[in-house]
């Protein structure tokens, strides 16, 4: 199939989609870079002018930037830890032949199919609401005061919600990896005198390393841009308590109408995402070579 003619035909046939995809990505990126060097505010149209790197200076020296950078890293890091650890534990449980395993698996996977906005609304109004929420009701059963989650522990609330959303993904990947673990290996370790804990740390966990890498990489890409959960619940507040980079860019562009500043913020976010990606791939990408 790989004659010169067929290769050429293949290239010609796939060219349209590649060109469209390239334009789809390159044009917005190019325009964003261009806008980031302009003074461009929607409140004063027609006054656009080239101001060099001033937008970047403003964005990077803004105290909100550091706060939101810290929030972003904290959010990504916490959710990663919770989903990977929780995913392994749930995966181990669902790998056991327990009663109702099929239905249980379906239930565990379900949150992943719920869109982030709905997820956030459910948590905000049905679970975490200090007056009518279920957590408040449970607390009242024990005679405890209700917690106003989004006021007292805003970032923690966001982390809980996002973790709940992403846990199924981790479970799904890790469970399939667990199922591919050769039973003979566990039995060999048993013969070698390893208990359940040793088997987990010496056999199961190394076997999962590749799957964990995949989970961490993919989740990181999506978690850097968490937006809907914040927008629906806290709106980035109180203060800047739950503002991450993505939300900060949004406030710049659509609340302050500063397109130039928002573009600069967007480019900074892209660069940050790339730094994290390079760092992650270097750190754990070695696992993928094996």
């Amino acid at each position, binding site marked *: 199939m790989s004659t010169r003619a067929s290769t050429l035909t293949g290239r010609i046939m796939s060219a349209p989609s590649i060109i469209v995809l390239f334009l789809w990505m390159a044009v917005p990126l190019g325009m964003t870079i261009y806008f980031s060097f302009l003074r461009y505010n929607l409140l004063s149209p027609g006054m656009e002018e080239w101001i060099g790197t001033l937008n970047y200076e403003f964005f990077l020296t803004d105290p909100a930037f550091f706060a939101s950078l810290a929030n972003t890293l904290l959010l990504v890091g916490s959710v990663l830890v919770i989903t990977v650890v929780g995913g392994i534990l749930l995966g181990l449980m669902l790998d056991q032949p327990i009663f109702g395993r099929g239905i249980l698996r379906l239930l565990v996977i379900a949150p992943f199919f719920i869109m982030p906005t709905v997820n956030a609304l459910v948590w905000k109004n049905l679970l975490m609401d200090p007056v009518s929420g279920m957590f408040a009701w449970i607390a009242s059963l024990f005679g405890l005061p209700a917690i106003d989650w989004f006021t007292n522990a805003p970032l923690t609330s966001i982390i809980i919600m996002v973790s709940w959303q992403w846990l199924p993904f981790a479970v799904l990947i890790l469970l399939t990896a667990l199922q591919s673990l050769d039973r*003979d290996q566990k*039995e*060999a*370790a048993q*013969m*070698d005198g*390893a208990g359940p804990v*040793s088997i987990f740390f010496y056999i199961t966990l*190394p076997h999962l*390393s590749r799957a964990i890498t995949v989970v961490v990489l993919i989740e990181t890409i999506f978690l850097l841009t968490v937006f809907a959960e914040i927008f629906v619940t806290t709106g980035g507040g109180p203060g800047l308590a739950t503002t991450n980079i993505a939300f900060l860019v949004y406030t710049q562009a659509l609340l302050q109408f500063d397109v130039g500043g928002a573009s600069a913020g967007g480019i900074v976010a892209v660069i940050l995402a790339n730094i994290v990606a390079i760092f992650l791939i270097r750190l754990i990408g070695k696992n993928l070579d094996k």
Partner: protein
Amino acid sequence: MGAIRLEKVKKTFGTLDVIPGVDLDINDGEFVVFVGPSGCGKSTLLRLIAGLEDVTDGKILINGTDVATEAPAKRGLSMVFQSYALYPHMTVYNNIAFGLKMAGESKEVIEEKVQSAAKILNLTDYLERRPSALSGGQRQRVAIGRAIVRNPAAFLFDEPLSNLDAALRVNMRLEITGLHQELKTTMIYVTHDQVEAMTMADKIVVLQAGRVEQVGKPMELYNSPANKFVAGFIGSPKMNFLGGELAKKYDCHEIGIRPEHVAVSTENGEIPATVKIAEHLGAETYLHVEADGYGPMTVRATGEVPLGEHDKIFLTPEQDRIHRFDAHGLALGKS
């Protein structure tokens, strides 16, 4: 020291009787082969001895102590798996050392034992490699190395050669036999290949449907099988079973005669037959023939025999090599 004794060992999965009750004595230092067709329960029996399955009933005595409810590691046995079950993320060294590490041995002891096992198995140059960088035979040796270092009461082998190609299998067969002669440890070896059983065993246990059909030295099973199943299973090609006139002549239900114990002549003989297929191997020739009145038979003639399809021949069984069976398939004494 590793004398193993099974007393009425029973295993059921749900309502299925996999092993209805097995009694067996394995002496210290013996090489015992469990052989039988697939699904006969030989692997299950091995796993019961290893402790990877729980016995439903019965006793497993190792050196006189009942270990039927002990954890696998406590029984002092080592197992070599069909898939080798090497730990893929560990080096060969760590694979071999794992059991010792779990047993809490000191670094020096581990180093010494691993090195000596590696020397016995020619693995010294490969200790830092991972299993994925080894050939099939080397992986097999690592699996054996992992078993050796624990200095077990007995080795258990679960079809260890079935993943190797034919040439390597012959080599490994010799290596394992050599290893047994060197270590003199009890070995229990499961296989479906009767050639492995015949060549390696001190004692063969033939199993069918979870029952022990016969226990004995290889040549005992070959020369005096207890029943039709053992007669048919041991020896290759399979024994021929003939009823009719010939059986009546020997005063039994059926007679059995091995392909190598039939004389072939083109002029005269007891049973006239027609050659269907002749397999010429040089050193020997297998003739698949249709015997008049008895149906298909296999005959093994030594050397090159100039016979082919449709050739008429005469077969004469060697009188003192005829096995007699009653209507239930049980062997009757020689007539």
